Each structure stands twice: as structure tokens, then as C-alpha cells.
């Protein structure tokens, strides 16, 4: 395999040439290093965040989906709802009843999520997400009950002011005190603590969306003011062994019938499944990804222009060498190949350094941010091939010039 041999020889030559022109090579390599480490760090961030969110979402029961008045990825201003939202009926118990009656549905509940402050003996939290729900919440959203209990049927029916609070909040408000049985103020109202739970691991909850606690749905509706578009939702669990798609169709049919929607008219509600949530997350991270690719392309471009410059100078510097090689029998292809390998080695070397930096920075981010995954392997593969590719592409012009040199002229070059 003469080409493999030429490749090895080319790599050796490339390192020789780099030693000969240290500053020029260092600048070129630096450009590639920056580009490649940017790709790696961004990729590990994106992957880390994504796997974090996915893990959380998948933690929740895959049998769960939600019915909302209107689905939007950003909260709507309740005072300025668009007409298309305003014409939709607010979700109510009749809707829940209709869904619950469908035979593929295991559970349906009209829940709320309200950002509220929690307070115990002068110790106050910032806004936390308080759920008005029922005993199915942990099954639907993930998380575990650590101590105490959930609501009794009587408490749910009467809307008794009791709360199961999140363990981090408990630690913050109570410190060494035992919170069980204590009365805390939530949004200014008194609630008795009957249990402590741990939310599913997810570091990327926006401020105000961190879990605070869970109260009976009726207690929430009677005690707090909330906005009926963003806060109110119906949580639906499919019967075991029934696919979400099937349960979703059943719920939609039941709701349409109950609301008297004529065939052909659009739904006056939205249904969100986890797949849609994952899709939304996916499209958000893809946008982030595009930004990242744009940023690192600039750095790689700088590296590319650097390699073009260094190769141009290198070809001129080594005109005589090219003449000698041609005199000894090198064909155009062999000369072209030599300089392309050299350019690829130069940027590939930068790529390797960049991968090293990227891995280190990714590992650092992983520990600092508590991400579950480090830099993904594919990003290293992409980075390595991109850097070699940059060298080869930007090396084509100088390498072609070398290949086309006239041997007599090249040998006479001083």
C-alpha cells in the first residue's frame, strides 16, 4: 500500500515542517484548537442538559399526558390572551369527569401549579412551584415520598389545608427541626405538613419553577388565586397496557363529545404528551446547537485561513525540494498528496489538542454543573474529522500549486 506509506511519510514531514516554522504553525494550530474545543464544550453542555431533562421527563410515568387550555412553550400573559385562546373554554371538573369515564383511562385529575412563597417562623423562601393535585402526582411526574404520607380521600374531598413538602425546601426552612406536623404558611395561608418528598433530579428548572410542595387540588383552588390558562391542567394516566396514543385519542373523543364540538371543528383544548415535551426540548437544544456550530465555524475558518497561509509559504520555501522530488520521479499526484497530508496533519494535530482541551473542559463542566453525561464521543469524532478536513480543503490551493510546478524551474529556484 504505497499510499499508506506516503501518508506516514507525509505525517513525519508535516511535523518536520512544523518544527521549522514554529510561530506560523502555532497560530494555525491555535485557531483549530479553539474551534475544536468550542465544539466539544458546547456539545457536552447540550448533551448534558438534554440527557438531564430527558432523564427527568422519562422518570415520570410514560403513561402520562396532559390536557391544557392552550399549549405554548412560553407562558401567556393572562391579561392579554390572544383571541384564539380566549374563545376556548377554561378547563373544569366536567372535562375531567368526561375523560375519566373513557375506559382506557386509569386516572384524570384537574390540577394546578402556582408559584408561591413558603414561610416558617420568619424564614421565607422565594417563589416555588406549589401543586394542587392528588395522590397520583409522584406517579405522573416522578419523585419519591421520603417520609409521612399522601392525602386521604377525606382530605382530598374537603380540601383540607395539608401539604407534602419537597425535601430541599424542608431543609432550608426547618434546618435541624423536624418539619412533620408543623404548620407552615404557603402564599399567606396555613398548611399542616403531613409528608416529605423528593422531586426527580433536574437541575434545569427555571427560578420559580422549583418544586415547593403538593397540596390537595381543592385546597389550592380555595386558598389561592391562579391564572386559568397557564396554571390549570388535567393530568391523565392511561390504563396499564394501553398506549399513550390510544388513551390520548380516547380522551380527545370524550372531551369533544362532552363539549359538544361538531365533527370537523377544531379542538377547543390541547393535549401534550411526553413525546411533544421531548420534541420541544429537542428543538430548543437544536437551536442552541446551531449557534454553537456557527461560533466554532468561525474559529475553524480562522484555522483554515491560517493553514492556507502557512502552506503557501511552505510551498514557496520548499520549491527546490519539490523540484528534487519531481526529478527523482514524484508525480503531480504524489506531490499534491504530500502537501495535503501535511496540511491535514497540521490541523489534525490542532484538532487532537482541541479534543484534549474539550474533554478536560467537558469533564470540568460535568462536575461543576452536576451533569450526568460528559462530552459525547461523536463530538470528538466530528471535531477530529472536521479539523483534518479543514486542513485538506484549505490546503488544496497551495498543494495544487506545488504539484503543478515545472521541475526545471523549481530546481533552479534560489
Amino acid at each position, binding site marked *: 500500500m504505497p499510499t499508506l506509506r506516503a501518508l506516514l511519510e507525509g505525517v513525519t514531514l508535516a511535523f518536520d515542517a512544523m518544527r*521549522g516554522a514554529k510561530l506560523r504553525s502555532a497560530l494555525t494550530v491555535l485557531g483549530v484548537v479553539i474551534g475544536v474545543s468550542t465544539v466539544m464544550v458546547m456539545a457536552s453542555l447540550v448533551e448534558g442538559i438534554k440527557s438531564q431533562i430527558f432523564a427527568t421527563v422519562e422518570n415520570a410515568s410514560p403513561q402520562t399526558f396532559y390536557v391544557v387550555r392552550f399549549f405554548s412553550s412560553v407562558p401567556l400573559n393572562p391579561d392579554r390572551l390572544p383571541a384564539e385562546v380566549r374563545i376556548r373554554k377554561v378547563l373544569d371538573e366536567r372535562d375531567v369527569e368526561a375523560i375519566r369515564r373513557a375506559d382506557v383511562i386509569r386516572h384524570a385529575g384537574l390540577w394546578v401549579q402556582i408559584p408561591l412563597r413558603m414561610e416558617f417562623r420568619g424564614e421565607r423562601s422565594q417563589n416555588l412551584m406549589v401543586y394542587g393535585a392528588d395522590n397520583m402526582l409522584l406517579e405522573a411526574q416522578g419523585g419519591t415520598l421520603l417520609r409521612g404520607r399522601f392525602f386521604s380521600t377525606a382530605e382530598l374531598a374537603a380540601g383540607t389545608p395539608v401539604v407534602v413538602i419537597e425535601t430541599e425546601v424542608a431543609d432550608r426552612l426547618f434546618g435541624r427541626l423536624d418539619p412533620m406536623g408543623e404548620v407552615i404558611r404557603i402564599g399567606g395561608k396555613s398548611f399542616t405538613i403531613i409528608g416529605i418528598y423528593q422531586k426527580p433530579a433536574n437541575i434545569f428548572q427555571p427560578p420559580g419553577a422549583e418544586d415547593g410542595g403538593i397540596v390537595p387540588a381543592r385546597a389550592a383552588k380555595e386558598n389561592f388565586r391562579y391564572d386559568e390558562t397557564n396554571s390549570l391542567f388535567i393530568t391523565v394516566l392511561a390504563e396499564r397496557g394501553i398506549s399513550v396514543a390510544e388513551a390520548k385519542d380516547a380522551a380527545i373523543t370524550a372531551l369533544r363529545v362532552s363539549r359538544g364540538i361538531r365533527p370537523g371543528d377544531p379542538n377547543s383544548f390541547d393535549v401534550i404528551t411526553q413525546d411533544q415535551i421531548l420534541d420541544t426540548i429537542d428543538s430548543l437544544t437544536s437551536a442552541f446547537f446551531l449557534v454553537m456550530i456557527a461560533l466554532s465555524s468561525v474559529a475553524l475558518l480562522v484555522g483554515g485561513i491560517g493553514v492556507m497561509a502557512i502552506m503557501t509559504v511552505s510551498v514557496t520555501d520548499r520549491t527546490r525540494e519539490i523540484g528534487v522530488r519531481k*526529478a527523482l520521479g*514524484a508525480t503531480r499526484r504524489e506531490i499534491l498528496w504530500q502537501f495535503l497530508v501535511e496540511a491535514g496533519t497540521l490541523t489534525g494535530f490542532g484538532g487532537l489538542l482541541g479534543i484534549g482541551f474539550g474533554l478536560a473542559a467537558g469533564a470540568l463542566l460535568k462536575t461543576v454543573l452536576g451533569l450526568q453525561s460528559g462530552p459525547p464521543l461523536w463530538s470528538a469524532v466530528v471535531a477530529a474529522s472536521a479539523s483534518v478536513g479543514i486542513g485538506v480543503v484549505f490546503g488544496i490551493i497551495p498543494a495544487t500549486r506545488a504539484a503543478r510546478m515545472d*521541475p526545471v524551474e523549481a*530546481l533552479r529556484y534560489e
Partner: protein
Amino acid sequence: MTDQAIIRLAGITREYLMGGERIRALAGIDLEIGRNEYVAIMGPSGSGKSTMMNVLGCLDTPSSGQYWLNGHEVSRMADDDLARIRNREIGFVFQTFNLLPRASALSNVELPLVYAGTGARERRSRAEEALARVGLAERMHHRPNELSGGQRQRVAIARALVNRPSILLADEPTGNLDSATSVEIMRVFGELHAEGQTVVLVTHEPDIAEHAHRVVVLRDGRIDTDRRVEHPVGAASAVA
């Protein structure tokens, strides 16, 4: 000798255009060189010696005329075909040695074999053999800047020989060497010729030319004289 001709030139011209002016570096050359000849090409500066060398070495193609090398016409060949011919048939020795400065003597000598596609092991043993033949077995791993001028030219000769070419072409091979070293290098050429190698060298120094067995003198791109040397320098000892 005609049936044994390695080189046959017929009506070779080489013209250059310089600032609209036509320069005839070679103005119609007819020449035959047979197997195991030892030819010196002489002539004043600008007479066309180097141009003729480049044509003979397939580095350059003539403007008109025919050139047969080993019976194959090479005067109309394409670039890459000429590269293959140079690799197999021609061994070049230059005035300025033209070794790759960063490579060891051994790697320099291996280079033509790299382009011939020879395997690494065979490449190495043949390069070692060629270096031993020019008396540099001890200096194989030195770089050119660690070698004297004479030693560098020996490395270049080893490199020219390593592919067992039909002709050894040397353009002013002693031009950058002192007289003692020149004699040493000319002795190497004499030995190679005695072993059967065809040698063509360009020189403007008459005493160097006297090592050859035939002297062709160029003037204004034409052959002025073509004579045999009665008693070549060093020939007796080499042949004996």
C-alpha cells in the same frame, strides 16, 4: 554501437520566449549515446549544456525533434509519464547536491524507491547497499549538514544509483567542490563506469572532462565537436 544506443536525439531544439524574443537554447541536436559510454558535455556558458541535460533527463521536453530513450520515444510524453521514466531510467547528480536537509543520508537515498513503490525493508537494504558502494556505510544516519561537500555529493550519487537507472546524469557535479574532492568524486564516476554504468556529465572544466571517454562540445545550441578521449584520466586503474 548504434544498435546498443540508450539515447538517440534527432533534430532536437528547445526554444524559450523571453520578452517577445525567441532564444534557441538548443538549435538542432543529433546525438547517439551507447550503453556503458562515458560522455562529457562541454561548452561555454550559455551554450545549452544545462538545457540539453534537462532534456536528456526528461525534466524538460524539446520544442521539436525526437528523443528515444531505450528505444521509446519520450519527446512527446505527458508529465506523469515522464516522472515515471525519470524514476526508473535516470539518476540525477546536481552541482548543489540537492539533498533534503532534514532527512538522513539513508532517507535521502531511499526517496527514489519511495516513488517507485518499493517496500520499506527492500528500500532500506538497497539504500544501505548504495551508500556502502560510495563509501558512506558509516555515515548513513547523518544529516546533510553533518557531512562534508564530498560526502554530500556521494550521498547524491548513491541516491542517483539506487534505482539502477540506465543513465547517470551529472550537471557540474564538481562545481561546488575543491580540486582534491573533485578528484575523489571523479574516481567514483570512473568506478561506476567501469562496472558498466552509462554516465553523462556536464562540465566546463577541461581536466574534469578528460575523465570521460568521449567529449561533446556545444556552441550556441549546436554540437561543435564530438571526439573520443585517447587516454582518459584514471581509466587504466579503474579498468584494471
